């Protein structure tokens, strides 16, 4: 008897806590036609924009009342990702949006019937552990949009803005496969341009500052790819690079506005929007997700951060847009 009392007490505690914090996950709709599950890995500007673009594209095409979104954020915890995917799959949603690599992997493992669209993913083949076919499709119930901004053009941008740079520091989080992929490709392009480069990897937000400091003391320019961890701590990076007067070229706009001077960015909102249009094809027009090739980012735009450029005394050519 006492035991059951205690168990009930504990459960009631959970219930009470959750009613306090409840809300903020799913939109209410009177009659729903399509159930779309969204699993976002972590909260930051780029991923949020992608989710927003995705939702907007679907609402525009199908109408607000015909879609019900179940949005869940995993707070960068792997086990939570699996739990969220488990509830989406068991809810038998019509489509799953996997925003970042861990949700994509978990979803691909959990179901081979529900269509899965990835967004903010840099390398589908490595993420899924299988190669893409000739058309760029996966052949399984996964497709999506890829956020890879053309790295050769980014290398060109470094050369264009800093022609006298001798060494480029490649700053990234060692736990992010996407970043490692971009860094490896970037090194090849820098080699072609004859620019020396060194890798500077940090493990998490705790050692960002010290690793950035090392990079600043040995390099003329720093490059940061589309790294989720860096995107979450741009302030810390800025506090090191600005006084050290080392310019940062960023892989996406969010990082650039936080600590960089220039970026060849794709719009994550546009990327999400593209993914949303693919979703509409699947939901309303019955397209086969396994045959849809991975879509790549639309025209990248050259952008610069006016404030930091002024602070570091860098002049920017006229074909750049201010953030």
């Amino acid at each position: 008897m006492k035991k059951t009392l205690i168990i009930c007490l504990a459960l009631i505690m959970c219930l009470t806590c959750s009613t306090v914090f409840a809300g903020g996950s799913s939109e209410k709709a009177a009659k729903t036609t399509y159930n779309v599950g969204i699993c976002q890995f972590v909260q930051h500007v780029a991923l949020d924009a992608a989710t927003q673009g995705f939702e907007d594209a679907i609402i525009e095409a199908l109408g607000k009342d015909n879609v019900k979104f179940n949005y869940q954020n995993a707070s960068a915890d792997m086990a939570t990702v699996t739990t969220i995917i488990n509830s989406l799959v068991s809810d038998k949603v019509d489509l799953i949006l996997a925003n970042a690599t861990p949700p994509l992997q978990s979803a691909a493992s959990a179901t081979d019937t529900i269509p899965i669209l990835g967004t903010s993913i840099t390398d589908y083949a490595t993420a899924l552990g299988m190669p893409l076919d000739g058309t760029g499709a996966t052949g399984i119930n996964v497709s999506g949009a890829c956020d890879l901004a053309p790295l050769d053009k980014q290398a060109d941008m470094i050369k264009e803005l800093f022609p006298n740079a001798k060494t480029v520091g490649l700053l990234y989080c060692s736990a992010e496969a996407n970043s490692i992929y971009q860094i490896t490709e970037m090194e090849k392009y820098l080699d072609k341009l004859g620019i020396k480069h060194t890798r500077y990897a940090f493990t998490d937000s705790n050692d960002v500052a010290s690793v950035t400091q090392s990079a600043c003391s040995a390099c003329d320019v720093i490059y940061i790819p589309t790294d989720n961890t860096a995107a979450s701590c741009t302030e810390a990076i800025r506090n090191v690079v600005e006084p050290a007067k080392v310019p940062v070229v960023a892989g996406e706009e969010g990082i650039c506005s936080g600590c960089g001077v220039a970026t060849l960015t794709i719009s994550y909102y546009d990327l999400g929007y593209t993914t949303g249009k693919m979703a509409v094809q699947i939901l309303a027009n019955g397209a086969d997700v396994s045959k849809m090739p991975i879509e790549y980012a639309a025209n990248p735009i050259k952008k610069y951060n006016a404030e930091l450029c002024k602070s570091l005394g860098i002049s920017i050519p006229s074909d750049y847009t201010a953030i």
Partner: protein
Amino acid sequence: MNIGSLISALPGAVAQGLIWGIMAIGVYLTYKVLDIADLTVDGTMATGGAVCVMMLLNGANLWLAILCAVLAGMIAGLVTGIFHTAMGIPAILAGILTQLSLYSVNLAIMGFKANQGINFRTTRILISSRNVKVIGFENPIFIMIIVTALLIGVLYWFFGTELGASLRATGSNEHMARAQGINVNVSKIIGLMISNGIVALSSALYSQYQGAVDVNMGRGGIVIGLAAVIISSVIFGKIFHNFALKLMGVSLGAVIYYIVIQIVLWMGLNTNMLKLLSALVVAVFLAIPYWKGKFTKGARHA
């Protein structure tokens, strides 16, 4: 919020719970039997998966890959054991040091990629979240029940042997163990090796289940393991006295933990609050024996 959707999500939660339950059994061995708080598990929880997945992707036999994962975990336990016994570093710190080093080691095992996917469609694996609703032998719940039962059986036999008894004695009364001629340093090392081997097994199974190994997948693992141990000791403490049943209780504790998380998610809780809630759940379960003690004492005085 319909109850149907919660019920249909339960099999997934149970499967996750059973897999983490293996890890919790490993934590139980060091925490309760050996009386060491071993933080190595946050690292080992990724090492097992890293070894297993990389071997599978290179065409190795499934069972060999899992076996190697367990061996890798045991090596991690050995390192912590050496830090603690031969180098005199306090147990908690020794575990943290090993866990720290494992980050780099795990990255290296994964070929310096932080994340590696594995696909049940192209590689033969033991369990996958795909089969959670299937009625048959591929259902992860079924497989995990068998794995858990086998593990408990082996551990029950082991701790009944002379060597196993000497480990238990070391954890119960180190002074007495030495007086009985037991080399307590060796006991601790063996205990840490067994425990981390088990955690690595859990890791190998989990990375197959979720379709990927990620260098950060072990983060916060010790909290989940301890939560399962504590939940089981509070709920089943008075009923289960037999060692085998106690281990089973630990596995159930992990299942309960994941069911609670699933319920919380189903209620529409903002998942950003999930970590706070997990901490609260563990805190409540930890407080229950303390409150019980207080109330009983109070009743006597009244």
